């Protein structure tokens, strides 16, 4: 009940779950449910039960990190619920409480902060070529590896303006604009959330014996995406 009340205090919860009759239409439309051991209907049932133990299990599980936030569930639910929004609420609470470090997919939050979080603040882009390192992204295949190794020439040939002043795709974002992005993160709690995720992750890495004496946690980071 305690965790349920915490979830309920999030404004997205009101839109996300009114009452569920277990028709399964969300699972039937869910792309993630086709590939993973993931069932948004069951998730809604657990939340609806208000059972603290089960909700805690969810917050510590891989389950809540399977959703791709496509929100197809919203378009179908005959009760006007949106499991995708409930996922957002669960993820936020899992991050705030540090429960995300209890599951493998949850621990990937750290890698996301370090990769996408970093490029957002440093370059003004979510996904930036330099972070999609072929060794960490085998799914991108040999073509990407070639592009990555020849990126200056390739982007130039394609008419992009990679990391350069002036207009164009992937151009360098002005310092004052980057400062604005940072200010938005500071004001909206984004910076604090990044710090929270980092602190819990460092604690976990230490607990797992994956932190070196100099405070580096390369083993922890490498293990997150692969293996």
């Amino acid at each position: 009940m305690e965790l349920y009340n915490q979830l309920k205090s999030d404004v997205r919860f009101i839109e996300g779950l009114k009452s569920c009759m277990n028709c399964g239409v969300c699972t039937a439309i869910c792309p993630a449910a086709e590939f993973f051991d993931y069932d948004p209907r069951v998730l809604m049932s657990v939340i609806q039960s208000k059972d603290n133990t089960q909700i805690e299990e969810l917050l510590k599980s891989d389950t809540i990190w399977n959703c791709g936030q496509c929100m197809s569930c919203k378009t179908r639910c005959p009760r006007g619920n949106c499991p995708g929004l409930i996922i957002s609420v669960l993820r936020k609470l899992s991050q705030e409480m540090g429960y995300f470090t209890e599951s493998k997919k949850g621990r990937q939050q750290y890698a996301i902060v370090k990769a996408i979080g970093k490029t957002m603040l440093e370059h003004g882009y979510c996904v930036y070529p330099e972070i999609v390192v072929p060794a960490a992204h085998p799914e991108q295949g040999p073509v990407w590896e070639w592009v990555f190794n020849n990126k200056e020439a390739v982007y130039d040939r394609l008419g992009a303006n990679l990391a350069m002043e002036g207009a164009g795709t992937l151009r360098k974002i002005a310092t004052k604009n980057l400062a604005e992005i940072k200010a938005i993160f500071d004001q909206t709690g984004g910076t604090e959330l990044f710090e929270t995720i980092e602190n819990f992750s460092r604690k976990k890495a230490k607990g797992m014996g994956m932190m070196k004496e100099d405070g580096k946690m390369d083993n922890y980071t490498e293990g997150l995406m692969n293996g």
Partner: protein
Amino acid sequence: MNTQKTIVTIGAGIAGIESSVALSKLGYRVILVEKDKTIGGKINNYYHLFPNNRPAVDIKNYMDEQCRIHDLTIYKNTEINKVQKKGERFSVTTSNDDILKADALLVATGFEYFNGMQKEEYGYKIYDNVITSIDLEEKLRSGKQITTAQGKEPKRIAFVHCVGSRDEKSGNHYCSRLCCITGVKQAMELNSRFPNSLVYCFYIDLRMYSMEYESLYRSAQEKFGIQFIRGKVSEVSENKEGTLQIKAEDTLSGRPLRMEMDLVVLLVGMVPGQGTEKMKSVAALESNSHGFLESNDWQLHKNSSSQPGIFLTGACNGPMSIDETMEHARSAAFEVHTYLQNHSKHE
């Protein structure tokens, strides 16, 4: 004394006819107004009736016979354009500009089928092999051979329950009550025509609210091998060959499914009829949150509307089966009778 009193009944479906016949038996003068060129309303659309497989034409013949025996006055192709109350009497203007005087009005304007096209994800009128339960009933009734759009015998058939019912997305929060049993009846009908076919019913909850309905459901499983899968269908798509692919979750095993079908039948729900909609404005009748005409008293006076002297009968009041409609119609007649008797006492 009764013979001086006149009742105008709006709608000559089974509710309107049965209540008018009952009032006629009680000695009243009844005028039936029907918007269509034929009487009987929706009964004309059905083949066999649940739960006993009785031909619907039996009911139609009974209605015709009763109208003849009691010599009911019926205005066909006629709608009601205006209702005015002058003192205790009503003045009703028809679409032919006739003015009918009445001591009481009986509204029997019925229901309409949910328009399957509104649930675009099921592909009705987009994919040729998606039909509604009403289309199927018409095919059965006409006696024509049932095939897929490609002219083949359907081998795999899916019934989709709750199309336009229990669905906030269609604006219909209520259960239409009769689609479940219609699905069971039609699934058995198709399986007996095509004994080698596999018939599936995709449902949220099966609402077999009569003793006989539950028996039929059991027969469907035991004698016809109909497969009931608990899960709402999320969408239908078409394969190159014109067969259909449907997606649902088997919620009892917690597994998402994709299945190929030759024919998909949408069990469309019941919504207020056009005439019912019109009565809300013409006679200032209140409707409930679902759009059906509101009873003045749900438990004690189901047939009374929000206006004194105007009574409700049949599916204008909410989804109901044929047997329930017949009872509702007779109780309406009695309510009208009681009202008119009390009024003559006070006059």
